[in-house]
């Protein structure tokens, strides 16, 4: 079955009824109960601190299993939409930057065609950890995104395919988010599963015979799943300032840990930020 037939099938199964949706991570923090269908946008800018462990070799440079990293970051949450076309970014999101077009929407659900980059470049020139390896380019994925708002729950699915011939693989994901209020604190939780086809994982995490070395032994990867679990809280400090914090656990397929480019089968992140809402 071709990619687009599968994408259409996923969209139809998940959204049999018929709104312009947004990034799930951003929406659930705002306590969204429906899609945003008008022209306009919003902008939030702030600063934050994150403490994390990474399962990926070289991300960040010099990363080792279980090593704890601390980084300051600029917290940006922004979205602009005009006649269905939109761009959105949220530094605490699972997708970060997305551009797209809303082509079908109902009262509490929407289907968009989106484009985003899900995998960063791995290049020995910019990261010495990758020296001796072939360059792995970043990808650009395109495909439908369906979002449904069901009371305090938000469900979002992606069916994306690489369109710049980086790896020509596909990425499918489903995420379920819930938000609830305790006094003026707004809590959220997200669980999600992502399937990457062999083309994607093979491109980024396999070591072929030509580039294999003592440091990077040959490894061949197959398609695999990864999972995320996240809980967090958002608090309105004032009408223009919000505090956000979350803890995220990422679990990757244990078979992948045999790749020299994977150092662990899980990673955690704790982040807090204060942002100004324009």
């Amino acid at each position: 079955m071709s990619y687009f037939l599968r994408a259409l099938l996923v969209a139809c199964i998940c959204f049999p009824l018929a709104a312009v949706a947004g990034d799930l991570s951003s929406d659930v923090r705002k306590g969204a109960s429906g899609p945003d269908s008008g022209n306009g946008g919003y902008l939030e800018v702030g600063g934050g601190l994150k403490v994390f462990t990474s399962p990926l070799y070289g991300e960040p440079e010099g990363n080792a299993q279980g090593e704890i990293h601390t980084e300051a970051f600029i917290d940006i949450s922004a979205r602009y939409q005009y006649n269905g076309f939109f761009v959105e970014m949220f530094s605490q999101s699972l997708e970060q930057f997305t551009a797209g077009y809303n082509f079908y929407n109902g009262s509490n659900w929407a289907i968009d065609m989106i484009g985003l980059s899900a995998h960063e470049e791995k290049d020995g020139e910019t990261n010495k950890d990758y020296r001796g390896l072939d360059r792995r380019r970043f990808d650009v994925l395109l495909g439908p995104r369906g979002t449904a708002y069901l009371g305090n729950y938000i469900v979002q699915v992606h069916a994306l395919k690489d369109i710049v011939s980086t790896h020509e693989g596909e990425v499918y994901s489903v995420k379920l988010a819930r938000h609830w209020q305790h006094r003026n604190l707004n809590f959220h939780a997200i669980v999600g599963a992502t399937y990457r086809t062999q083309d994607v994982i093979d491109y980024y995490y396999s070591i072929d015979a030509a580039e294999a070395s003592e440091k990077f032994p040959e490894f061949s990867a197959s398609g695999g799943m990864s999972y995320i679990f996240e809980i967090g809280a958002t608090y309105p400090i004032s009408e223009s300032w919000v505090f956000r914090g979350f803890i995220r656990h990422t679990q990757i397929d244990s078979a992948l840990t045999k790749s020299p480019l994977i150092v662990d089968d899980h990673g955690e992140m704790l982040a807090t930020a204060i942002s100004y809402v324009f």
Partner: protein
Amino acid sequence: MDSCAVCQRPSPKLLLFSTWVHLLVLVFCAQAAADVPIAQLQSKPNRCVALHQGQVCYQEVILYWHADRTGEYCLYQQQAQEPLHCWQAQASGEYRYAFASDTPVQMQLVSMNDKTRLAEAQIDIAWVYKANTRRKTHWRLF
């Protein structure tokens, strides 16, 4: 020319000042005649901030009141039948109130001698994210 200062016509400013003084005296006399205390009611803070529109907002507020004489006073939430708190033979007081509402609430200080509403204070609600869950601004990128 006669330079009698007393005979000079009063200036417009003096006339205006005189009128104000008379009005104040009249108001004072009327108030005294009605024997209604003068009171003030204040809420600190007077605004509650919730994340998005429609949410119930929670805020601990302290309501301060002060009257110009001792008496029996009660604090009411607007349209409530029962008072939140009453004071006997007091000229001032404070009340810690657990505000929880999705709409602004008006508080009232009532003199129990004649059931007169003496003072009001409103607790407003503000949201970070306005209607439709997302803040719409008017800036344009293109």
